[in-house]
């Protein structure tokens, strides 16, 4: 159980796909103009990665090595389609909002990367823990960026007016340049955080020595 927890937590911070591993950026900036979109996208991606890692882990001994990439693609594409159809049916507004980015989950580097590096080699339960960690790690960063952009660019969070009426929204943040800049600052913050954590990690060891 503790091992599973460790695998799960990895994806949230230490090996956060967006901020640390710097993969899966494609959809990340486009959907973060509103927190609602970010949550939708994050959860959709989590659905796909969890099931993809689960299925591929279950079949990992039956997939010949030379055709593993096409097989992975088939599995990931299948689950992407399932979430796409499901969202179109049960969350039509959100689906329209996210547009082409839901189908684009199939080429999300994070999923392909984890499936190749982890799920194809580990047991199903571990694979699911890893997928949940990565998926939720992706989701929380998306929500963070979106909260920033929506609050400053629109004065709202989840469409509820947060900023006082007098606050003039800074449109810049909802526009592409704003998105890039916010992301740049998030990465910068994360690099700093990583450094601080690394120093904190090393310090006790030094004292012991």
């Amino acid at each position: 159980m503790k091992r599973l927890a460790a695998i799960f937590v990895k994806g949230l911070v230490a090996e956060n796909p967006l901020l640390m591993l710097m993969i899966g950026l494609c959809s990340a900036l486009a959907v973060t103009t509103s927190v609602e979109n970010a949550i939708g996208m994050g959860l959709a991606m989590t659905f796909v990665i969890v099931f993809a890692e689960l299925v591929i882990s279950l079949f990992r001994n039956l997939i010949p090595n030379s055709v593993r990439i096409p097989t992975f693609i088939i599995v990931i594409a299948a689950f992407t389609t399932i979430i796409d159809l499901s969202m179109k049916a049960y969350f039509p507004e959100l689906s329209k909002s996210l547009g082409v980015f839901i189908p684009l989950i199939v080429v999300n580097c994070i999923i392909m990367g984890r499936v190749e590096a982890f799920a194809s080699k580990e047991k199903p339960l571990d694979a699911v823990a890893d997928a949940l960690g990565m998926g939720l790690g992706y989701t929380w960063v998306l929500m963070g960026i979106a909260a920033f952009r929506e609050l400053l660019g629109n004065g709202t969070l989840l469409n509820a007016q947060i900023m006082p009426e007098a606050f003039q929204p800074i449109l810049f943040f909802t526009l592409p340049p704003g998105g890039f800049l916010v992301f740049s600052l998030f990465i910068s913050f994360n690099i700093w955080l990583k450094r601080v954590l690394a120093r904190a990690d090393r310090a006790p060891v030094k004292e012991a020595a």
Partner: protein
Amino acid sequence: MNLAKIFISAFLIDNIVLMRFIALCPFIGMSVDVPKSFGMGLAVTFVMVMATIVTWPLYHFVLIPLRIGFLQILVFILVIATLVQLVEFFLKKQVPSLYGSMGIYLPLITTNCAILAVTFDNITRGFNLVESVVYAVGVAAGFLLSMVLLAGIRERVRTSPIPEFLKGTPMLFAATSLLAVAFMGFAGLVK
């Protein structure tokens, strides 16, 4: 829709990287220097156009008539993956030097969000085959342009003083932010 309008929109006004945020991974990862960016851009252009030429008829003459439109994601990505494999084989045999220098980035073209996005756009925007190809060329040109621009900036910046908190990747995104501002200026270009 007028072909020139489609091209200009795809190339500049609605630039796939700077305005739509698509294909950021290769954009950041490959724009290390101008020649590499150019090579990557051309490879992507080729695959994008080929993908359009294969997926468009496949969708309109096979998927729709057979009422299996829901297999679009599966079919399109498999077509793209196959095309990239073919390109790889071709380069390996005919132009091994290029194959060597492109290395691991060649198979990564499969996961290039822009290619899949374009094949989907062709359908959602109701383009006919000619319009789709023009659109694909426009998008690819826009991708190439944005990569070359960032590569140029990166080459310059290597010898410039940068504030500590922006060193590395953050600076790249900050620079991209400025590029995006510049490209927003194209907005009124086409009526």
